[in-house]
């Protein structure tokens, strides 16, 4: 008797009997788990485990209590630095995974059509032999780029298995799909890259929130996305910091905040520009900051939009030097790149000047001109923020000294995600509110084990890769997906994957803990172990954490740490995989870096969590920036071809194509009870959030005759899904929200990933013009631009 997920949820209260009989030891163990009351008895052993829900990137540690081989309780593992000690509601519930009756138990191959759910059990031997032979076939016929090994976050993050798999991937010289469809992360990185030249999450450590009078969160649901950090925000609030939340939905962060500013998705640029306009009109901007550290005073040619260079006005002049207009001498003055102060110079930020017959304006004048295109009425209409609120917010920011802007990934989940993410940063630049950026967390410098030789995978942006597989550019025939629920996360499940990539593949392997939507369509499904059953080294802030197996791998599951070497052996690369899991970790620790001095595997085995010997990481501070001019660049020449050299509001691609037909914007936020598509099958968490729901404003609901609890059909040209409506004031008219986490089995019909756009067609245009920097490009999936209509089903 195989339970569907729905059936499991309903019968969860009577787990012990019939289910136990079906599952053998797993069921009995689950029964034991639910029967046990936990006394503080001597026979309980504890062990440290990295939290599997680490999609939040907080890398918390859990302490698991094991009694007679059963994990009976989870708590937060105590860290040497107690500020890092934390377990959120998901972490605490992680123990419910280990004995979940729907875990994959043995390797299987499909015997029906892909997605038909017809499986036959096979041995690991047969699985490995098949994968190896198909891989060899593909490589012989199509070359090394016919193989795509894709590690993911699945049952746990920071996985050793990912690194071992990447080691094989590199040796095979297959393709590597980098970047993400799914998040606004890339857009934020591109934004900070354009402004400051730094492609990593930028700004203060959250510990410093308390230093500010006003702390603004832009599209960053910190309470639910970074639960451990929330304590700092609460502390700041208690000590007088005013918390402002800017975003489309009134979520937990907004509820705790002192001020909720309701910006529509895609409206951040308009809001920021409207505010900048008011500030510039009122002369309320940080003149010194703009003059000294930004591109503000640098003259820009009116004819071609490029910065005026020394080489433009002087023979033999350098292309590297820029020109400003000195208001003291009333002449053009050449300045080198960087922010070193030039004595006796007072460059203008505004005005129009002619230098050697070339008309120029300081970049700040251009920004002012641009901002002037967003008077209050227009800014309000495009952003959804009431005019009075824009004015109040602008005045407050302009007249408060200690303000911090914490920009999240929300604004970036758009076709114009980079523009949207740039906007709040630009605002912060204008007011000189860039944070104090004291040191961040320390980290260990470990050896990488992914490069056995010089051989390396070919990195392709994942949007280009999926498109390339569809149109034959990339002859990928073998795709080994480890713990990445692509159908769920990467739009569009049908267009990109089921009808796009899959038909081109000879072999599709998924390595998973559960039969996810993606796994259902595989040719071979391999059962992964959970974090409780395998060895792993993770890097929480300031520490190293060794996860040691607490229980034997359950059923016929195998950690991919042990899988890759066996596959490598069959492919002739066995010599590079001569280590055990412990051996890999020893190699990682043997970097010789001072941060890991004195930290051995033995020490980690006995202590579990060890503080690294590194000082706190100095945070990037944009003085000088790594931009071409060495200054903060809110004016980016490189984006002239697409008209985005300055902040600007642009309607999304969807708006242009479908705005009239589909008037509602569907966004799919995350809530703190689930982590991407993980934890939705944990019974305790489903008691709190039993079913998917569609948040809809009463105005939109009434206009369509949809009542609270009615089944609603959400649709557009790409697909549809059915879900119960929840009439809510938490969002404004014109926006719909459904938490993305649930699986198709949980929805009444369909899934949001069927209506959300395929990423490869809708790539952020910046991707095409902006040079990428290794792994951190500007590409993003415009997930939240999704336009739909809804009706009562």
């Amino acid at each position, binding site marked *: 008797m195989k339970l569907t997920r729905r059936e499991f949820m309903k019968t969860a209260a009577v787990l012990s009997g019939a289910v136990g009989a079906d599952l053998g030891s797993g069921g009995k163990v689950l029964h034991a788990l639910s029967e046990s009351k936990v006394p503080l008895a001597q026979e309980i052993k504890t062990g440290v485990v990295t939290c599997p829900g680490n999609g939040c990137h907080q890398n918390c540690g859990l302490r698991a209590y094991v009694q007679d081989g059963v994990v009976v309780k989870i708590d937060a593992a105590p860290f040497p630095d107690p500020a890092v000690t934390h377990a959120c*509601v998901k972490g605490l519930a992680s123990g419910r995974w280990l004995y979940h009756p729907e875990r994959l138990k043995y390797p299987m191959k499909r015997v029906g059509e892909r997605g038909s759910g017809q499986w036959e059990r096979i041995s690991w031997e047969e699985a490995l032999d098949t994968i190896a032979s198909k891989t060899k076939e593909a490589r012989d016929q199509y070359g090394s780029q016919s193989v795509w090994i894709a590690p993911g976050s699945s049952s746990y993050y920071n996985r050793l298995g990912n690194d071992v798999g990447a080691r094989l991937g590199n040796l095979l010289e297959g393709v590597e799909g980098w970047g993400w469809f799914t998040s606004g992360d890339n857009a934020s990185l591109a934004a900070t890259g354009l402004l400051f030249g730094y492609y990593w999450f930028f700004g203060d450590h959250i510990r410093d929130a308390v230093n500010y009078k006003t702390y603004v969160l832009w599209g960053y649901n910190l309470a639910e996305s970074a639960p451990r950090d*929330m304590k700092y925000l609460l502390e700041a*609030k208690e000590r007088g910091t005013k918390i402002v939340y800017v975003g489309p939905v009134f979520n937990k962060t907004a*509820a705790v905040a002192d001020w909720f500013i309701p910006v529509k998705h895609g409206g951040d640029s308009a809001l920021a520009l409207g505010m900048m306009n008011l500030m510039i009109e009122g002369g309320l901007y940080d003149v010194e900051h703009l003059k000294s550290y930004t591109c503000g005073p640098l003259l820009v040619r009116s004819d071609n939009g490029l910065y005026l260079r020394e080489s433009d006005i002087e023979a033999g002049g350098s292309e590297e030097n820029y020109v400003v207009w000195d208001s003291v001498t009333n002449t053009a003055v050449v300045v080198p790149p960087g922010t070193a102060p030039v004595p006796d110079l007072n460059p203008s930020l505004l005005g129009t000047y002619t230098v050697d017959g070339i008309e120029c304006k300081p970049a700040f004048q251009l920004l002012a001109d641009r901002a002037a295109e967003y008077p209050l009425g227009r800014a309000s209409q495009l952003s959804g923020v009431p005019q009075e609120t824009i004015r109040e917010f602008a005045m407050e920011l302009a007249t408060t000294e200690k303000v911090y802007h914490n920009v999240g990934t929300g604004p970036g989940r758009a076709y114009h995600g980079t523009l949207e993410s740039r906007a709040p940063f630009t605002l912060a630049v204008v007011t000189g509110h860039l944070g104090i950026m004291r040191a961040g967390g320390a980290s260990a410098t470990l050896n990488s084990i992914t490069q056995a030789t010089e051989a390396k995978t070919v990195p392709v942006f994942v949007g280009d890769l999926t498109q390339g597989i569809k149109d034959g550019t990339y002859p990928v025939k073998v795709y080994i997906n480890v713990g990445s629920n692509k159908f769920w996360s990467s739009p569009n499940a049908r267009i990109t994957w089921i009808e796009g990539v899959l038909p081109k593949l000879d072999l599709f392997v998924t390595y998973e803990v559960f039969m996810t939507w993606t796994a259902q369509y595989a040719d071979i499904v391999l059962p992964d172990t959970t974090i409780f059953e395998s060895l792993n080294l993770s890097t929480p802030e300031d520490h190293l954490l060794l996860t040691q197996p607490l229980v034997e791998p359950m059923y016929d599951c195998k950690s991919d740490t042990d899988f890759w070497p066996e596959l490598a052996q069959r492919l002739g690369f066995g010599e590079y995989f001569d280590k055990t899991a412990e051996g890999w970790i020893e190699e990682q620790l043997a970097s010789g870096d001072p941060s890991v001095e004195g930290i051995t595997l033995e020490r980690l085995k006995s202590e579990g969590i060890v503080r690294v010997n590194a000082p706190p990481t100095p945070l990037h501070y944009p003085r000088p920036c790594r931009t071409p001019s060495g200054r903060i660049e809110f004016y980016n020449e490189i984006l002239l071809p697409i008209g985005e050299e300055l902040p600007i509001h642009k309607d999304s691609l969807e708006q242009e194509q479908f705005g009239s037909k589909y008037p509602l914007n569907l966004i799919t936020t995350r809530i703190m009870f689930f982590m991407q598509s993980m934890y939705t099958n944990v019974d305790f968490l489903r008691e*709190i959030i039993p079913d998917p729901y569609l948040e809809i*404003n009463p105005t939109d609901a009434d206009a369509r005759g949809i009542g609270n609890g009615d089944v609603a059909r959400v649709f557009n040209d790409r697909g549809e899904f059915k879900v119960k409506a*929840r009439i809510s004031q938490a*969002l404004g008219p014109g926006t719909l929200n459904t938490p993305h986490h649930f699986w198709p089995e949980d929805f009444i019909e369909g899934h949001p990933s069927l209506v959300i756009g395929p990423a490869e067609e809708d790539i952020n245009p910046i991707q095409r013009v902006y040079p990428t920097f290794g792994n951190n490009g500007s590409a993003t999936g415009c997930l939240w631009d999704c336009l739909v209509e809804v009706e009562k089903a």
Partner: protein
Amino acid sequence: MVKHYGMAMDLSRCIGCHACSIACKIENGLEVGMNWHRVETIGEPGAKVGEDLPAGTFPDLSMYWLPIPCMHCINPPCMAVCPASAISKRADGIVLIDKEKCIGCKYCVWACPYEVPQFNPLDGTVEKCTFCAHRVDQGEEPFCVHVCVYGARVFGDINDPHSEVSKLIARKHGRVLLPEQGVEPAVYYLGP
């Protein structure tokens, strides 16, 4: 004065994450469907546990959360009405149900103003939050207090004016829920 255990809930620090409710289930080995602790959403009237529905009209909204353990009342109505004398109050104030004596009449479920006792259909008796007496007796705090990283819950002797919990209640003007019921709960709420 005689010790009486109690709690202070600092609602300005509660984000409604329900970690306390889940922690309680784990600590006490509770089944699906059995919850000794709940967190209510105070927003739109009628919002169920787990539904973040704010009060007000967009965008002028408000929402906060109310964690509800057993109040371990000074004057517990559950104890007064129990026909089986299954409910008793310890010297330190903790109110406990003796499942051996309980006959499952559910009268305490009716009598509790906070709807705290829960009928367990698997064994036909009623159970409820014990302030983790088994932990308290070993010098530890209740597990729900232990897991709350935001400092929204403080546990201690409310009869001792120098205890952390008493000082917090005094400083932030703690109040009890439904004082007119006359049961004198030992759990105080501060803020939000």
